[in-house]
């Protein structure tokens, strides 16, 4: 399985974080809208009432003045009106004995609604809102029965509507800002809350990559104590189980060594005396010998895997990778010419266990023979601090969806069991060996046709081993155990 590095979130879906933030923002918006609306309604009502009260007071003052004027004998209504100096925006209309008088030219009977006229003529004072070309206006009607007249005062309320408009705008702005602020607050709160989940995700992927010791650090947060305890408990039991299984496999394989040795030796003895055996016995001996060889190979592979799992210390030495490849080819009876080399090539020094690397390369070559119609060519190269071995075969290649699966234990190619030979462990051994060497192996396409298997090993450092091994102090070799991501996967390279 390729592990994705870094944070991995599905795009386009409503994540927990985003939903939390949205909920926060909506909640904030609703609350602020409610507050704003209530504030506005309350303020508006108050302001209007204030206005009405002051208009009424003013109207009564003016009305009583007009009444006094009208009750004085010999005075005409027009004269009385002319002595009134109403405040700006206020006009007065008086109705007496069927005649209409007003303080200004721009106001008259037509500005008064029927309802108002009707009410006042019945002797009821009235306050009414009306709209004029200049904006809203207040009409106060005061009956003057003593003077047999009706007094109307109209005052403009344009400033009031201006005030209300401004208030509306300000409050809307406040609502918007509040909503935005809550959204931001919501996002940071959501992020805070999600952080422990991120920690859990990081710990889980570390464990999946092989660091079975990873645990969440203890917390005093009472909300998180439960999940930390559960996660650590789960990791403990997983680790114990995995290690138990690994030990069991290792123990079983180990126990099989001695009986297998005896079997192999016995069969070898029999094979020396083949001619003494009757025909059928010879065939039986052949069967036994062949299966025993397979048995032994499987056991060797299992033992090797167990050793790699346990991170056992394997003696390493600095060798030229090309020499290693040449010796591997020669030792397995393959032509050395398979290794393509040109003139003037530099040495490729790597610090490896020769035995394990030879085994890995051998397995890849065997795999090429078995499934790939034979090895076509082998190349060794170095770049960017790493050494590479590329093995191309002459076969049909490996389908992209299979390229990871083939490195799993006992993964088989299609076909009847046992027909292709092999233990099913060869490639997984290669992967584990490379992982133990801080390298990698992967399968890709060879240019032209066929599969290409690429092996990467870090180049040996210049300083090499610091002490003389014959002094008895081996140079320190840390067994890199599970500190690398899985060995099956290409490194990020620009233009491979």
């Amino acid at each position, binding site marked *: 399985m390729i592990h994705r590095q870094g944070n991995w979130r599905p795009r386009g879906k409503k994540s927990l974080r985003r939903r939390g933030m949205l909920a926060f923002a909506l909640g904030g918006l609703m609350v602020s809208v409610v507050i704003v609306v209530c504030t506005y309604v309350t303020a508006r009502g108050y302001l209007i009432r204030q206005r009405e009260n002051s208009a009424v007071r003013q109207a009564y003052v003016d009305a009583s003045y007009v009444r006094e004027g009208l009750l004085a004998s010999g005075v005409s209504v027009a004269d009385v009106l002319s002595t009134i100096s109403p405040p700006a925006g206020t006009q007065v209309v008086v109705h007496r004995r069927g005649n209409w008088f007003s303080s200004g030219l721009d106001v008259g009977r037509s500005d008064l609604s029927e309802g108002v006229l009707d009410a006042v003529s019945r002797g009821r004072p009235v306050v009414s809102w009306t709209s004029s070309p200049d904006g809203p206006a207040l009409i106060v009607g005061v009956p003057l029965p003593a003077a047999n007249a009706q007094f109307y005062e109209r005052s403009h309320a344009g400033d009031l509507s201006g005030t209300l408009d401004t208030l509306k705008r300000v409050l809307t702005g406040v609502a918007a800002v509040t909503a935005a602020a809550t959204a931001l607050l919501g996002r940071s709160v959501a992020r805070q809350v999600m952080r422990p989940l991120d920690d859990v995700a990081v710990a889980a992927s570390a464990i999946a990559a092989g660091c079975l010791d990873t645990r969440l650090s203890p917390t005093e947060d009472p909300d998180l104590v439960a999940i930390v305890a559960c996660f650590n408990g789960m990791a403990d039991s997983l680790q114990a189980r995995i290690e138990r299984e690994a030990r069991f496999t290792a123990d079983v394989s180990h126990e099989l060594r001695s009986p*297998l040795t005896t079997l192999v030796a016995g069969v070898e003895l029999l094979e020396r005396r083949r001619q003494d055996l009757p025909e059928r016995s010879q065939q039986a001996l052949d069967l036994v010998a062949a299966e025993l060889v397979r048995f032994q190979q499987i056991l060797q592979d299992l033992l090797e895997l167990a050793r790699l799992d346990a991170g*056992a210390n394997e003696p390493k030495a600095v060798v030229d990778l090309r020499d290693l490849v040449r010796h591997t080819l020669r030792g397995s009876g393959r032509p050395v010419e398979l290794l393509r080399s040109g003139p003037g090539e530099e040495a490729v020094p790597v610090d490896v266990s020769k035995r394990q690397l030879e085994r890995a390369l051998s397995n890849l070559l065997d795999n090429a023979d078995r499934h790939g119609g034979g090895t076509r060519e082998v190349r060794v190269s170095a770049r960017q601090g790493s050494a590479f071995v590329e093995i191309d075969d002459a076969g049909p290649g490996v389908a992209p969806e299979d390229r990871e699966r083939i490195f799993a234990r006992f993964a088989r190619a299609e076909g009847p069991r046992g027909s292709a030979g092999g233990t099913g462990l060869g490639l997984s051994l290669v992967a584990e060996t490379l992982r133990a060497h801080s390298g990698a192996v992967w399968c890709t396409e060879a240019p032209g046709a066929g599969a290409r298997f690429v092996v990467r090993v870090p180049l040996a450092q210049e300083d090499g081993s610091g002490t003389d091994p014959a002094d008895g102090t081996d140079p320190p070799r840390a067994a890199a155990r599970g500190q690398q991501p899985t060995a099956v996967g290409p490194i990020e390279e620009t233009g491979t």
Partner: protein
Amino acid sequence: MSNGWQHGSVSTRLLVLEDDDGIRTALRLALLDEGYEVVAHARAEQALTELPGGVELMLVDLMLGGMDGFTFIREARHLTDAPIVVVSARTDTHDIVAALEVGADDYVTKPFQIKEICARLRALQRRGRSHPVAASELGGTVLDEQDGVHLTLWPEAGLVRRGEETVHLTVTEFRLLCELAQSPGRVLSRTVLLERIWDQGFFGDERIVDAHIRRLRTKIEQDPGSPRIVVTVRGLGYRLGTV
């Protein structure tokens, strides 16, 4: 077909020390086939009693009941210089290196094939030289002067002497010294030494060479910590320091 010859028609006396009955029986039969004179024991204490009678090769399992393989080797080395091949189920670094330190010459791990064992035994039996003998080397070569006494190598006689005293080296240690002495001053890599003395070549375990160098130094150097005779050339191998 038989490989147990050494000098003339006398077969080599080989001691097998293995406590697993099946393996011991199989080894005995197979090695008899190869022409060796096989003496097989399951317990180290009994095996030790064979040594005074003369044993030319030994195949020893490390994991034994009672006295273990290491102790046997250590005791055996007081009595004989014969080559010892160690059989081990464990491939732990420490086990193998410890066995080599204590006096073993080579090792195989279980499960092994008889062919492999025979190849190892054969390699260790070779007393012949890998290069033709030069006339000047028929006599002794002085390797070092220690406190006024000469440390001399007599390849033909198979001896190393400090003054009048014989220095006891195992067969393999002696061959190693001879190999270095044949090209004095020239660096021999571990791979080359593995090939010439142990017949193992590129994929041999270099620790075998290192352990033997260590043992050799302990026996012939005046100060094993600052070796003068067998000198390390870092990154390349070993050479005989020219006196």
